[in-house]
């Protein structure tokens, strides 16, 4: 999947251009109060042009009025284009995801009674209904989203995630979901369809981006009210100016009134507002996150607390052995031998890492008829028996019990070592040979490189990070400090997460979390932003309001930034748009009155050529600033985690002060150009 489509691709442009005209339909336009008033103004100018053609003399030349009409029409088209190109980009992105949903043959299974083999039928994927069962074997493309009810398979999900390494999905666990369009590489699974046609998360997301079911988000509604308010102010200003001008015996042309009005109302932000919203969701989609509503993206920007699982987010996968500490009087070589033997059948990542650290292939030790003792929750140890030797490794208290039962003393230096390892965030594994303690293995969590910088970034955004782990409090505390998280939940049970979220919410904070298991579902539902991993269970995906196709636990950080960017882009462009009015006033107001009141030349601080050129320059600037800002609207204003006050200062300087200065330069430059022609 192409992640970096350029902003303006040719086919997207064509579609957007077409849509720009379609969207001129007043019924569609009505949704955007600011641009709707521009459309009314454009229509009025159209009739003024006709009126002049019919012989009216008082409104100036036909050419001038017609140009004003054209520029206003362009303003509308530019605004429509902004929305259309955002939609087209989103749609293109969605289409590439939807390609994975093309018709695929499905091996549908129908149970015919208890004692018969299931009936198998090959049907097109579009005929699968919710609750249907199908199976896939190596080489099959999974026809629809569903949950594995039986079996285990390696699956290539690169069509969705872009990640080429295959993943394992199996029934019963927290990784039981499969996605339509992915490919089974080995084994066989039976899958139950869990969404109806057209109702999968992806379908919902596509609808959101395409604008069909796009609901305005709360902040967008409030901003629309603000913009409508500003528009109304200028309706009052423009309408009342007519009697004022009559009173002062200064006739003003309709073109001048409408230009004044259109220039003053916040057309820049009004024209780009919906494009910004769509682009925000598109950015989420590009980050491979499917959101169920635009509101969720916006809420992400407000998050105060982030719950992160330790494993996979803060630390790399699993713990690794980092040191061997033989007890006093035990030969290190002998200790390593015992350690390696005890781990040779241990398939856990920890076990493998022990052999890796020792650097010895257990096959080198020629031992006879080894009997492997599996780890159980009761003994909390595992090991190997061969000849007359019994080697065990396990949690220190269980080995202690074992050795003391046999009458051996638990060495004090081992005891101390165990404490030391624990307090350093490691996990000690004590090893015994024939119930006699011979040393300790240190397992350590490996903290991801760069993760503490990310937490620092979050802290500057004002977000509190909370690590969730099954470790004991001592270990958890150490890792929390080392990684730089603000708080941790140790020995976490699912209800602990839930309680933590509720507690923070009761204090007024917004909480985001990521999860995959069915256990996580209540907490995902409770959280303000719940991101379920795509590999997670259906329950988890239903409960959250976003799904991450990449199953990347650090994605939350990205989502928060996307949310903030969305709000910031709206805020800064609003500021820019309103700040522009200052310069426009100095262009248009003198132009309105200068003929009747020549003294007002003093207000023409830009020394614009003539009243007509001043008005044209202002409306032209007003129109072309929209397409110039489309790239910014689509990409979003960059978020810098420098604290709210510094960020405000920065954005005020760039978009506020810039918004005051830029149009002075722009209008003057356009005036120089325009004055060549008139």
């Amino acid at each position, binding site marked *: 999947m192409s992640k970096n489509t350029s902003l303006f691709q040719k086919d997207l442009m064509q579609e957007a251009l077409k849509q720009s005209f379609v969207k001129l339909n007043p019924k569609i336009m009505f949704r955007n109060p600011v641009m709707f008033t521009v459309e009314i103004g454009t229509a009025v100018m159209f009739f003024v042009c006709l009126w002049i053609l019919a012989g009216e003399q008082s409104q100036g030349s036909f050419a001038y009025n017609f140009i004003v009409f054209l520029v206003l029409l362009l303003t509308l088209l530019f605004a429509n284009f902004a929305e259309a190109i955002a939609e087209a980009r989103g749609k293109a992105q969605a289409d590439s995801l939807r390609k994975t949903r093309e018709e695929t043959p499905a091996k549908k299974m129908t149970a015919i009674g208890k004692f018969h083999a299931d009936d198998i039928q090959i049907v097109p994927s579009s005929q699968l209904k919710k609750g249907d069962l199908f199976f896939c074997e190596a080489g099959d493309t999974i026809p629809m989203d569903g949950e594995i009810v039986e079996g285990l398979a390696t699956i290539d999900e690169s069509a969705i995630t872009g990640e080429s390494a295959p993943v394992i999905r199996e029934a019963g666990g927290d990784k039981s979901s499969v996605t339509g369009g992915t490919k089974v590489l080995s084994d066989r699974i039976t899958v139950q369809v869990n969404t109806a046609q057209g109702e999968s998360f992806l379908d919902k997301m596509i609808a959101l981006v395409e604008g069909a079911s796009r609901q305005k988000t709360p902040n967008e509604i409030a901003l629309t009210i603000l913009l409508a*308010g500003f528009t109304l102010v200028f309706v*009052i200003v423009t309408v009342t100016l007519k009697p*004022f001008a009559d009173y002062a015996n200064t006739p003003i042309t309709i073109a001048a009134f409408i230009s004044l009005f259109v220039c003053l109302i916040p057309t820049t932000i009004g024209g780009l507002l919906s494009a910004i919203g769509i682009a925000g969701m598109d950015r989420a989609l590009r980050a491979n996150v499917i959101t169920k509503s635009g509101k969720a993206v916006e809420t992400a920007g407000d998050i105060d607390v982030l719950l992160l699982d330790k494993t996979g987010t803060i630390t790399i996968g699993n713990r690794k052995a980092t040191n061997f500490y033989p007890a006093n009087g035990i030969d290190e070589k002998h200790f390593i031998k015992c350690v390696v033997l005890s781990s040779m059948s241990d398939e856990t990542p920890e076990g493998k890492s022990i052999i890796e650290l020792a650097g010895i292939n257990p096959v080198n030790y020629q031992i006879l008829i080894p009997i492997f003792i599996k780890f159980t929750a009761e003994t909390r140890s595992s090991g190997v028996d061969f000849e007359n030797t019994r080697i065990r490794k396990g949690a220190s208290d269980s080995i202690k019990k074992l050795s003391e039962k046999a009458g051996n003393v638990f060495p004090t230096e081992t005891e101390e070592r165990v404490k030391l390892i624990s307090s350093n965030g490691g996990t000690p594994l004590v090893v015994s040979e024939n119930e006699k303690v011979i040393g300790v293995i240190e397992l350590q969590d490996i903290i991801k490189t760069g993760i503490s910088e990310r937490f620092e970034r979050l802290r500057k955004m004002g977000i509190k990070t909370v690590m969730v782990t099954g470790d004991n409090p001592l270990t958890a505390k150490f890792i929390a400090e080392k990684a730089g998280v603000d708080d941790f939940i140790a020995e976490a049970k699912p209800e602990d997460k839930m309680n933590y979220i509720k507690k923070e919410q009761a204090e007024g904070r917004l909480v985001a979390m990521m999860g995959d298991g069915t256990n996580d579902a209540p907490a995902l539902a409770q959280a303000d932003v719940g991101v379920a991993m795509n590999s997670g269970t259906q329950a988890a995906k239903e409960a959250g309001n976003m799904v991450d196709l990449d199953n990347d636990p650090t994605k939350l950080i990205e989502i928060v930034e996307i949310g903030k960017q969305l709000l910031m882009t709206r805020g800064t462009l*609003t500021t820019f748009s309103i700040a522009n*009015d200052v310069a426009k006033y100095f262009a248009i107001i003198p132009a*309105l009155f200068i003929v009747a009141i020549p003294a007002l030349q003093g207000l023409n601080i830009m020394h614009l050529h003539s009243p007509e050129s001043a008005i044209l320059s202002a409306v032209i600037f007003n129109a072309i600033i929209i397409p110039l800002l489309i790239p910014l609207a689509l990409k979003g204003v960059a978020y810098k985690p420098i604290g*709210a006050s510094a960020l405000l200062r920065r954005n005020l300087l760039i978009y506020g002060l810039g918004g005051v200065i830029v149009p002075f330069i722009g209008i003057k430059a356009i005036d120089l150009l325009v004055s060549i022609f008139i």
Partner: protein
Amino acid sequence: MNTEILGVILMFATVVALAIPLGRYIGKVFNYENTWFDSIFNPLDQLFFKLGGINPTKEMNWKQHLVALLIINVVWFVLAMLVLTNMSWLPLNPDQNPSMSADLAFNTSVSFVTNTNLQHYSGESGISYFGQLILMLWQFISAGTGIAICAVVFVAMKERTADTLGNFYSFFVRSCTRILLPISLVVATLLAFNGMPMTFEGKDTITTLQGDTVQVSRGPIAAFVAIKHLGTNGGGFFGANSAHPLENPSYFTNIVEMVTQMIIPIAMIFALGFVIKRRKLSWMIFGVMTIGFLLLTIPTIISEMEGNPAIANMGIAQNMGSMEGKEVRFGSTASAYWSIATTVISTGSINSMHDSFTPLSGMNQMLAMMVNAFYGGCGVGMLNFYIYIILAVFISGLMVGRTPEFLGKKVEAKEMKIAMIIALLHPFLILVGTTLATSLPNLTAASLSNPGFHGFSQILYEFTSSSANNGSGFEGLGDNTPFWNIACGLVMLLGRYLPIIGPVAIAGILAGKKYIPESNGTLKTDTPTFGLMVFAVIAIIAALAFFPALTLGPIAEYFSMPK
């Protein structure tokens, strides 16, 4: 340095120096903390509550507060109407002044009820002493109303979630008895001992040096003038207001009146900091308001000190600056300072004729009322500023990438709707009112003393003053006609109550919302950066809405003057 400028600086420094401790005291009054006036006022308050059958501890939500406010105002409005239309036969009328016509009584009652104190009558001949006393009572009630409702908003801004915000009657009585009454007593005493009459006797007759006999009006002026300024009312005892020698006899009384009118609006800013325990926020607000005030004051003082270029062109020296319409005992600097102070704050009393100021000074006076929140009226100035804060919070909240929040409460669509309506209202009333007056020349043309740009300024000023509940006038306007009485009356009513209802509604809704603790990503509202943002919002809203109208009035007049 020029002593006139030193005088102005002294006046401003005195106000700030007194306003900070007064703010702390007001904060205590509304936090129900102990003050040394308690032993006097507790029994007095209890007496009022007993007489009125009011339970002062009954908690009210924001709607109940507004209902209580409107009830108090309506009852006294009716009473004022009755007195004004019947005072010719009522007692305390030694000068045999007539009753008012219905439309004039309506305008006058509305004017005093709304703290505007626009006067379409002249005190000497248009009202009896009984009428003056009723108006004096009103100056207490309207100021007390403003302070009390502002206290409600302060309480709503506290760091918690609450539906009830104290008791309005209790806030109202406390405002009148513990704040307005004691300061008025002190000020009235100061004024009475400095040449201001305080009597119920009728006109005095004196013989001038030329040998003519002159009738001189007098009355209970010292008491009237004290609350007139303290409550930012501004309704003059005489037609000439504080330019009248008996209403403002000397430079010293001028200082006292000046300090008195600014003290409560500035003290309210600091009271906010004490009530909600955020003194930095108070300083931010004070900073923004003061910068706005100075930006209007300094050019006005310079412009008036330089004199009128039209007069200069006639070859007349203007050593004292532009003195047309100004009193020699105050001079051009103190008059210019007063003219901005009285328009920035909603007092509207005058010590010089605003009509005679140079065009740009006239524009600054109008801008002061168009913003109506650089200090502003008693209590209501803070309410107006609150709306600007909400708008600034919204835009800057978005700019830092969070749903906007103010003092831990999220500002959402409903609050924006109310804030926008209130922000729209002021331009709407002023511009539409002016439109009416300019399009109905058969009703208004005869009342203008100047045609052209200046005449337009007179109309614009009148509606700006009404909508801002200021009450000062560009005195060239002959405004006692049914058109002006009714139009301005309606504008005053809308311009008073809606801008009270709006902020109280927003504050009430926000108070009921969940409190979000501050984090690093929260926009801090007590910083200079945010202050700049608020200032920009005020400047842009005021400038954008009124620039075209001002261009056709004072700006065109300025550019048309011979240089």
